[in-house]
């Protein structure tokens, strides 16, 4: 249960990070608070869009789904005699997809754009933790 709770809290934090980047992309927030100065370079690069939509919007949608599923998961029993396993499987699949997408974006930042955005790296750390927690929760249940 602790893992599911931790995932819900992390997903909510990730949702706010993505919202911050998306609102900046919409022009509703001024200069990003970014110590390295690389945030604007990353956000203004052509890679800030994916399939015609801002990458940050994928983050908002992804974290929102992760938060809803993990919040529902917290309400489900995860111990014998009748543990509900579907939330753990769903979370592991969603988090793995998010992790792979984030890995692609981080590689772009480091090796193509040559600039790093602290908020993007923060989001990468969050999704990595969520993926590790959700996979360990699935292993625990199997």
């Amino acid at each position, binding site marked *: 249960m602790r893992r599911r709770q931790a995932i819900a*809290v992390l997903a909510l934090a990730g949702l706010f990070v993505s919202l911050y980047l998306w609102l900046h992309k919409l022009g509703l927030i001024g200069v990003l608070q970014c110590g390295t100065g690389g945030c604007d370079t990353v956000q203004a690069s052509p890679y800030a869009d994916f399939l015609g939509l801002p990458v940050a919007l994928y983050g908002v949608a992804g974290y929102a789904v992760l938060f809803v599923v993990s919040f529902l998961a917290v309400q489900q029993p995860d111990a014998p005699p009748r543990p509900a396993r579907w939330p753990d499987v769903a979370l592991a699949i969603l988090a793995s997809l998010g992790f792979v997408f984030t890995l692609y974006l981080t590689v772009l930042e480091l090796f193509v754009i040559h600039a790093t955005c602290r908020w993007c790296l923060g989001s990468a750390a969050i999704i990595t933790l969520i993926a590790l927690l959700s996979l360990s929760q699935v292993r625990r249940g199997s």
Partner: protein
Amino acid sequence: MRGFYVLLAAVGIGGAAWLAYAARHKPDERPAPATPVPVAAAGSFRGYTLGSDSAPVHITEYSDFECPFCASFATVQMPEVRVQLITTGKVQWRFRDFPLSSHQYSRFAALAAQCAGEQGKFWEMHDQLFYNHQWAQRGKNPSGLFRGFAKTIGLDVDRYDACMDSQRYAGRIEESRQEGEALGVDHTPSVYVDGRKFVGQPTSDALKALVDSLTARHKR
């Protein structure tokens, strides 16, 4: 379980407060321009062009001289675009300045290009700025380097200096940026084909495919 809800509420309230703060302080956080820019000075100038006015397809590029992707586009894709689309008469290419606020010297570089344009050598300076793009990575004042570019392309350097010192075309550059902003330009380079935003990576092959399909449609 109670601790979980308390933590969730704390993250929710903290995150919402942070977003509200960031949105409310938007105007104060934008860096002030170095000097006031009279947009009215731009006049009716619509950007430097390559290719014939009578070309069937018109492409407008919004670009930032300090942006690495714009340099890559100018040095890798643009030579192909010139050969395949501009010299063949299929396209008229228009360059518009879109200096990003995060780039320290992009307005200065845009000014250098405009001052070269005053002497009929905009595209020569455009190429100097993009093909010698190391200046954009150094973060040092590039005025001496740009002056060297001016000499290389054969500008009257005294006229160039006077133009740069007076910031004669600052209004033109700001007007171009505002035009791009109104169109929804959110990254550089952004390309508009016959007024419609080109979605995806603007490679020469992708642009050629689009131009060919538009040209075929024009002929029907």
